[in-house]
């Protein structure tokens, strides 16, 4: 019994220590970001690796989510004779919630795991230590560019997801099902506010980008230098990123969209 209590206390202290270490890591990343922008090509190369390479999966997912939303939305709305509001339904769902969240989850799965594996293997192959020996700060050279690249890429990917989703919904709703095109767009334009809906969605993507990139980099940096360690680290990245994205989504939605 006493061993259980002891191990519980040990676990609690270890978790607190991890949280503190992660916060220090985050502060380091933010502090080194301006310096890393002095070599903009580093960040550009990372935006290519993180953002460009994720474009296909994000666009394809956006398209299919838009198609499905339009179909399901039409079935339910036509029960109440409100089929013309399909554009409004899909646009609000995508721009407010599904765009940021699904993009963040896909991004964590695709870019987050690649970041974790890359940093983990760099640490395992002692590349980061070698850089330090040459008086090159690995945080400026390696970590901060990836952090900034993540913050730049996520809003763009989220916007592409939502835009492709809306276009796909138009294809299904107007071209295939036959809803009036004018009603589709005008209801959408009436109901979606630029700052309250689209702006909040963009803010969400930025927050999710910061969170997922930071988590991926930290878990990669702290991973064990073995194949199993790297494998476990990539799984942990996906799990922790996804959970934090969903919790942050709840907090942000409550802050942004709840009526007082």
């Amino acid at each position, binding site marked *: 019994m006493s061993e259980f209590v002891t191990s519980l206390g040990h676990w609690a202290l270890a978790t607190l220590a991890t949280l503190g270490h992660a916060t220090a890591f985050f502060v380091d990343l933010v502090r080194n970001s301006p310096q890393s922008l002095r070599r903009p090509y580093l960040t*550009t*190369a990372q935006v290519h690796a993180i953002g*460009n390479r994720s474009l296909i999966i994000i666009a394809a997912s956006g398209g299919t989510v838009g198609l499905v939303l339009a179909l399901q939305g039409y079935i339910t709305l036509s029960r109440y004779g409100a089929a013309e509001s399909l554009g409004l339904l899909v646009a609000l769902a995508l721009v407010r919630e599904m765009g940021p969240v699904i993009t963040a989850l896909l991004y964590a799965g695709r870019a987050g795991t690649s970041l974790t594996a890359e940093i983990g293997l760099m640490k395992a192959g002692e590349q980061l230590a070698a850089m330090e020996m040459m008086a090159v700060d690995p945080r400026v050279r390696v970590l901060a560019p990836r952090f900034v690249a993540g913050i730049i890429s996520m809003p763009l990917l989220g916007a592409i997801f939502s835009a492709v989703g809306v276009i796909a919904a138009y294809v299904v709703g107007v071209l295939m099902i036959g809803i009036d095109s004018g009603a589709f767009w005008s209801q959408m*334009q009436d109901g979606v506010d630029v700052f309250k809906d689209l702006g909040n969605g963009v803010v969400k993507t930025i927050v999710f980008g910061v969170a997922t990139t930071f988590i991926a980099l930290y878990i990669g940096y702290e991973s064990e230098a073995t194949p199993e360690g790297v494998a476990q680290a990539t799984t942990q990245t996906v799990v922790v990123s996804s959970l934090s994205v969903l919790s942050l989504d709840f907090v942000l939605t409550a802050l942004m969209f709840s009526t007082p």
Partner: protein
Amino acid sequence: MSKKQIETLVGLFVLLGMLAIVLLALKAANLASFSFNTTYPLLARFDNVGGLKVNAPVKSAGVKVGRVASITFDSKNFQGLVTMDIEREYQFPTDSSAKILTAGLLGDQYVGLEPGADDKNLQPGDTIKMVQSAVVLENLIGQFLYNKAAEPPSKEGSGQK
């Protein structure tokens, strides 16, 4: 990949992302009809604001001229105090009237402004004197049933429902 190629691809990606945001803002949201006009506040006191919500439109002649900014309870004369933000380019005479109307039959409620005939215009912060409260469906039904019951006796008893 060469450095030049990577930079071009990243540039295209950023361009595509910004295009998506602009497309969403113009086509999906209301940026195209967004007016950066400043507004001025007008007040109105209603006996019953009904289902009027904050951000409901204020319309005159069917055209939106402003938005409801806030709805509070005035505990001095036990009325609902509605503050409306009217766009500065629209001025109304001091004897204009405000009514709470319903869009369609059972739709959302909005404030309708009907202009009066006075020479002077309402200043920011003025109160609209002539108001008509919202129609409360339950009161209407009660009135109808009361009238039905007060008809010449073809059936006795007060209205039941």
